């Protein structure tokens, strides 16, 4: 039985469809472009306003009310301290949790499932709530550390802990079970297998995750504001128990200051932003390089 095909409706439909398809693609490209155009505008704006102020003065001087001699040295150093504290805190605990969840935990037990759900929830909590947590427990409350570097580092550490855990789990999961089984077959205990076979294989993935978490933490301002990072500090942080600031806080301070024709802090803020973005770009590049260089295809 033959089916009658009338060709005029099909042909005109196809023509209309071609234009509709093209307009659709154009809209989609526009959607993609908006984000990048905004990003580009942001970069150019910050670059044009701040480049003049990016010089050794910015790096080596303490802040001052005179924009020409103001620098961000305490903020830069404090950010470095916070970063180191963060790594010391999150890596053992995050990787330990990931190892527990991936290698030791029985997935059918309710408490392990709750643990996983808990970590997913923590990743979605707004960062300012972590600031409140730090304020209530670390700065005032039971530990009563005061608004010092240690409190800041721990708060940021708690903030990015879920990220580190999730990234480490992915890295551990990517190691094929044949490696584990082979090791066990040769008589190794579970921990020996993990420590000598699985973990070394997962380190690139874990390192990438840690660096990304670090770069997220370095850009965070809100939690540090709530736990009382000082906005005007003229001396370098002296240790774990000294008041501190951080680069995003310094930038925030410079933006919020009233600028007039005599003292204009906005270009200074732009310069600080350039520094921060440079730092973040460097870190992310290292993370991407690590991933590409050491990624193993099993």
């Amino acid at each position, binding site marked *: 039985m033959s089916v009658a095909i009338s060709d005029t409706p099909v042909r005109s439909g196809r023509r209309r469809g071609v234009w509709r398809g093209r307009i659709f693609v154009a809209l989609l490209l526009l959607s993609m472009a908006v984000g990048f155009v905004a990003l580009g505008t942001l970069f150019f704006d910050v670059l044009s306003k701040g480049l003049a102020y990016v010089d050794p003065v910015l790096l080596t001087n303490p802040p001052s009310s005179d924009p020409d001699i103001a620098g961000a040295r305490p903020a830069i150093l404090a950010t470095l301290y916070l970063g180191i504290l963060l790594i010391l805190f999150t890596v053992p605990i995050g990787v330990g949790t990931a190892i527990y969840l991936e290698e030791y935990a029985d997935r059918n037990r309710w408490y392990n499932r709750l643990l996983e759900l808990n970590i997913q929830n923590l990743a979605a909590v*707004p960062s300012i709530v972590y600031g409140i947590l730090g304020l209530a427990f670390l700065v005032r409350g039971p530990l009563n550390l005061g608004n010092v570097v240690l409190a800041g580092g721990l708060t940021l550490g708690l903030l990015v802990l879920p990220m580190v855990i999730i990234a480490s789990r992915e890295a551990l999961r990517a190691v094929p079970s044949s490696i584990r089984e082979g090791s066990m077959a040769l008589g190794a205990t579970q921990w020996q297998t993990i420590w000598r076979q699985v973990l070394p294989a997962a380190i690139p993935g874990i390192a990438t995750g840690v660096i990304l978490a670090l770069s997220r933490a370095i850009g965070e301002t809100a939690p540090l504001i709530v736990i009382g990072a000082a906005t005007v500090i003229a001396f370098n942080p002296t240790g774990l128990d000294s008041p501190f600031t951080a680069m995003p806080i310094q930038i925030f301070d410079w933006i919020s200051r009233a600028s007039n024709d005599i003292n204009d802090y906005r270009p200074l803020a732009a310069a600080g932003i350039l520094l921060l973005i440079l730092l973040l770009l460097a870190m992310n590049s290292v993370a991407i390089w690590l991933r590409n260089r050491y990624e193993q295809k099993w």
Partner: protein
Amino acid sequence: MATRAESLSLAPPRKRWGEVVIKAALAACALVSVATTVGIVVALFLPAFEFFQKVSFWDYITGTEWAPLFLQQSFGVIPLIVGTISVTLWASLIAIPLGLGAAIFLSEYARPRLRATLKPALELLAGIPTVVYGYFALTWVTPHLKDTGLDVGVFNALSAGLVMGVMIIPTVASLSEDAMSAVPSDLRYGAYALGSSKLQVSTRIVVPAAVSGIVAAFVLGISRAIGETMIVLLAAGQQPNLSFDPREAVETMSAFIAATGAGDVPTGSVEYKTIFAVGATLFVMTLLVNAISIRLVRKYREVYE
């Protein structure tokens, strides 16, 4: 050669205590995350509870005047909630269509190499510190909005909302794209075989099939917008304002917490406890939004064989 049967034994080996200790240590690490959640709940709700001993909960929830630090104190939280919703609305208006559009492009139209370059580039948008976005909103977007003739104040909800929307685009796009990639290609090929155009396949086959993941992406974006602090702190202002007019300054819940936390309210005072009360409100709101997302995902999830 005969094997020495006495040396073989089927009894389990002696327990290695080192292994037990290590497992306990790792479990202790895992408990840190539990402690964090418990800590958050206690840190928010204990002082909030004390706060509600002093201030009536009904006044708090229904009051339309937020002035905790003034001489004539008033603790109605509605202006803060309205501020949060107003900015979130504008952010969603930007992030949801553009994010979905970007996701459809990446998933259906872009060649694999292009996708491999564009996807990380989009992640770059998400990696920019929010204080930088706040700076951008305050010093570039607001003046340019004024130039277009719109009568916006120095602080206004629109700038903050627009910039926040751009910041959230990668979140929405990334998750939506993951959801769309998970749709089996068989569905697409079947549609092409029946004569569909790419437009029809994308909009009538792939998107509906991935709708649960896409909705989850939208809701995640919204919940990020609700909790975001720096952009609104810098660009929307610190004036509680019961108004949905985007040209006016508003204060969101998160901006209030940051501003008050940065100031010097005496510990233990009622003003200090407002931080926790508003924090608890914010937390509950985020939880509700996430719970809605989980239910929606479960309801619309497509199961493929």
